[in-house]
């Protein structure tokens, strides 16, 4: 992250890392596409154990969904701050994004624990298998995002995140928003369309 690739001429005038990030995101579309398709294909096919209606907690997940949406707002504000060279607000918004992401993860840990107590496990039925693998993969992505944001925060405190490094924040932002967008789909498809 420390090298100045921006000095190089490129065919499109765009930074290679940003094109790479978008390509990676495109690739991720197919990963989550497969997971979500599998969830839908197996929807209502469980032969035992709890069903969606008995288990899913809409009020709770609505709040965590809102938290993740707001983290996306904090993320763009962090990018806006770093672009205009505002160190203080860069740190504030990066920390806010990471914190909101952690809150979302906290909700998910709580949700998973509660579900297991209510009898929904990975093994009990198809709903459990598909639900935990889908939302768990998403949660893992959020966790990676939180680590990434915290790393950027550390770089900022080291004085290594000036406006010339705004792209580093933008790349993390693209990843973060994509994870948010995946959750938008999951929230609708898994939680609301029971």
């Amino acid at each position, binding site marked *: 992250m420390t090298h100045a690739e*921006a*000095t*190089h*001429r*490129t065919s*499109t*005038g*765009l*930074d290679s890392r*940003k*094109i790479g990030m*978008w*390509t990676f*995101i*495109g*690739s991720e*579309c*197919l990963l*989550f*596409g*497969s997971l*979500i*398709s599998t969830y*839908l*294909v197996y*929807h209502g096919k469980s032969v035992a154990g709890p069903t969606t209606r008995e288990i899913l907690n*809409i009020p709770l997940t*609505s709040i965590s*969904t*809102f938290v993740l*949406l*707001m983290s*996306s*707002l904090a*993320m*763009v*504000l962090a*990018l*806006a701050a770093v*672009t205009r060279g505002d160190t203080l607000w860069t740190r504030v918004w990066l920390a806010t994004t990471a914190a909101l992401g952690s809150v979302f993860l906290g909700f998910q840990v709580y949700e998973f624990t509660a579900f297991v107590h209510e009898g929904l496990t990975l093994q009990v039925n198809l709903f459990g298998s598909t639900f935990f693998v889908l939302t768990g993969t998403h949660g893992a992505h959020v966790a990676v995002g939180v680590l990434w944001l915290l790393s950027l925060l550390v770089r900022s405190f080291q004085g290594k995140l000036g406006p010339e490094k*705004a792209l580093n924040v933008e790349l993390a*932002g*693209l990843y973060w*928003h*994509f994870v*948010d*967008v995946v959750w*938008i*789909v999951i*929230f*609708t*498809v898994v939680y*609301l*369309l029971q």
Partner: protein
Amino acid sequence: MSEQPQHHEQAHPGVGTYLTVAGVLTVITLVEVGAFYVPAFQGWLAPVLLTLSATKFVLVVGFFMHLKTDHHLFRVIFAAPLLIAVAVAVALLFLFGVVAL
């Protein structure tokens, strides 16, 4: 990449836009959850919710990820796999009889 900084300026909307988009996202989420609880909506739930969720998707991708104003190359790189993913999902739903014509 001498043209980059200038390009950046126009690519990224201001804080006001971000706040407006976040407001709209919040309202849509409220409507979604509300619709879920209104019994009269049950028959229409699927198309309504899918439309609302697609709107949120487009708003985040378009404004927060700057795809609306950014270089068109990014749109191509993102849209092609996304369309494949959606087409595959729809095809699988048909093949497994989850939806039918």
